[in-house]
């Protein structure tokens, strides 16, 4: 007799849930106009606004806002119709599942384009939803090769990908840092592993010897075991593909283990955070970051002044978000329409000088002429060493 009773309860449960689902009050957005008759154009922005990367997510959000506000102040008319841009920011918690949900949310809200997501792991699953909806997506910071490799013609990015950065790092490691014997560590995240693998290829290609390939995770703080076995292979450079929370204690533990090799990392390490956490151990560490040093950027100084005035210190990717928005609006103006179908066709043809440098996209949607800059910690500060142009040169 249980079964029947269960069915009754089951239906009750379902009803309850339905009610609960509706209780989450929300309104639906239609295309509307402002008081002065300007057409409202919604642009989405997605990044982790919570969790360990929230500070980066917030930074992206601010970058986008700055660009949007400026465009509105400047005043944009598409096909004779005056328009006003509105930014819808969503939090994907750097989680793939949530990413698809918020992507769906933006599609529902009929955004004309999306800036984001911040992580590769979220940009990839979301890209399918945007592609199905035919909405252009420009990620300012997803570096996984796969993102633009899926054949989705709606996916673009304004930052160099892992292959470009990895190649530069690898060559620099061997040729400039004199790395004969190289040890590579990655944190088994999409970012860390992707970058590390590219670096490994480049190192081998340019004649370096890989003496150790070790692994850790993005949650642990103890690396003494792997560093010890690396020490046994006495390399002269250790490369770490991962983020600063791991990189900093790693640098410390290299010291306390008496591991003398030079320490090299990617853009995950080239942060003020790393300096703070590693303290004295940070000295001499080298790390790369896509793009030009902010002061080396064409509009760098101006941008930083504007940004810091409004939102405080630039965390990391804000300039790329800014350029991503500019690229999108430029394409809209070129097409004389904000209709995705129309301006999507123009995106590959645009070319302008943005904050981070010359912006243009190749057939895949990767940024052209992406530059990579290398930094070294000197006296507790990141100092520019040199900038390498990695991407395919721009067609003028």
């Amino acid at each position, binding site marked *: 007799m249980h079964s029947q009773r269960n069915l009754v309860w089951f239906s009750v449960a379902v009803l309850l849930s339905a009610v609960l689902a509706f209780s989450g009050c929300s309104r639906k957005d239609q295309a509307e106009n402002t008081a002065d008759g300007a057409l409202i154009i919604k642009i989405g922005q997605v990044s982790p606004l*919570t*969790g*360990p*990367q*929230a*500070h980066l997510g917030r930074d992206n959000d601010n970058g986008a806002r700055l660009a949007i506000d400026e465009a509105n102040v400047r005043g944009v008319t598409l096909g004779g119709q005056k328009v006003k841009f509105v930014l819808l920011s969503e939090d994907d918690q750097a989680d793939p599942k949530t990413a698809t949900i918020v992507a769906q949310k933006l599609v529902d809200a009929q955004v004309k384009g999306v800036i984001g997501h911040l992580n590769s792991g979220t940009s990839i699953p979301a890209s399918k939803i945007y592609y199905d909806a035919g909405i252009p997506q420009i990620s300012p910071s997803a570096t996984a090769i796969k993102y633009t490799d899926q054949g989705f013609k709606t996916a673009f990015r304004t930052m160099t990908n892992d292959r470009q950065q990895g190649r530069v790092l690898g060559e620099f490691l061997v040729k400039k840092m004199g790395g004969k014997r190289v040890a590579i560590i990655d944190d*088994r995240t999409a970012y860390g592993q992707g970058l590390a693998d590219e670096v490994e290829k480049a190192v081998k290609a340019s004649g370096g010897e890989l003496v150790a*390939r*070790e*692994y*850790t995770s993005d*949650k*642990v*703080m*103890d690396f*003494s*075991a*792997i560093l*010890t*076995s690396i*020490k*046994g292979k006495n390399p002269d450079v250790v490369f770490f593909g991962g983020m*600063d*929370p791991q990189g*900093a*204690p790693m640098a*410390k533990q290299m*010291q*306390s*283990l*008496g591991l003398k090799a030079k320490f090299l990392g990617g853009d995950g390490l080239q942060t003020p*955070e790393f300096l*703070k*956490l*590693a*303290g*004295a151990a940070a000295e001499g560490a080298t790390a790369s970051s896509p793009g030009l040093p902010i002061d080396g950027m064409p509009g760098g100084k101006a941008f930083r002044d504007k940004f810091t005035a409004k939102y405080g210190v630039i965390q990391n990717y804000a300039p790329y978000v800014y350029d991503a928005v500019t690229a999108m609006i430029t394409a809209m103006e070129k097409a004389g329409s904000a209709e995705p179908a129309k301006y999507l066709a123009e995106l590959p043809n645009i070319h302008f000088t943005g904050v981070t440098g010359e912006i243009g996209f190749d057939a895949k949607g990767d940024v052209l002429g992406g530059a990579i800059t290398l930094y070294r910690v000197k006296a507790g500060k990141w100092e520019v060493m040199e900038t390498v142009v990695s991407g395919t040169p721009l067609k003028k």
Partner: protein
Amino acid sequence: MDIFLQQIVNGLVLGSIYALIALGYTMVYGILELINFAHGEVTMVGGMVCIAILQVLLPAGSVPVVVAIALGVGGAMLVCMLLGLAIERVAYRPLRRAPRLTALITAIGVSIVLQNSAMLIWGKQYVSFPEVIEIQRYEFGGAHITNLQITIVLLALLLMIALLMLVYRTRLGRAMRATAQSPDLAALMGVNPNSVIAATFIIGAALAAVAGIMVSAYYGLAHYYMGFLLGLKAFSAAVLGGIGNVAGAMLGGILLGIVESLGAGYIGPLTGGFLGSNYQDVFAFFVLILVLVFRPSGLLGERVGERA
């Protein structure tokens, strides 16, 4: 050889931290048969509070470093003790008669709450531990060990001995063991189970606080999320040694630490380079499972007979 020695040292340091935390799990389990999932979070709070206090005192410069550290450690222990007490009161005491799984879920809930409160208080960023201790490196047989590491191991050892003393030499200890054997009988013998249990939580929390401080000092940082993994490892250690058994927790902790670092260091050579350090946790868990399959109640855990 020196590599091997170094790995042992690494394992020992890691292990003694695990052991300290494992004690908290095992003591509570011994008495309540409850996995206090939130214990790892208490560890995290310990580290955080200590850092907070140091950050206030050090720049002021008015107090000498030693005093600052003493205050930091003391403050952290105090906060954690209160926290432990509160957790027991609010989350566990009402559920003593409930099915064990209920208590387990509550424990998980508590640890989620603690994590996110910590996030709200200390932020999402990693917090760095002020460099108060001048790091010295000593070398023996090719292996390096720092003064900090030595302090950690010795302090952990000291605390464990102290705990053993407490459990086997004092009235409170006797009361604890009695309660663990049979709460009702203990009650008949005039032991007040509630106060004994409270005491257990407090002691466990104090040890966790010290462990948390060690961790954040050793790695130079703390994060609201760090308690989870630590707690998990420590709990495994407690089970490995035979949960409910104080000596077992210590053995399990040290053992797990050494197994992990040896695993990370030698799994490659062992498997002819087929598996790398990326499988170190597999290795650790594999050892754990093996032990449990052959000794279903852990290394030192006494055979728990058929209790239905």
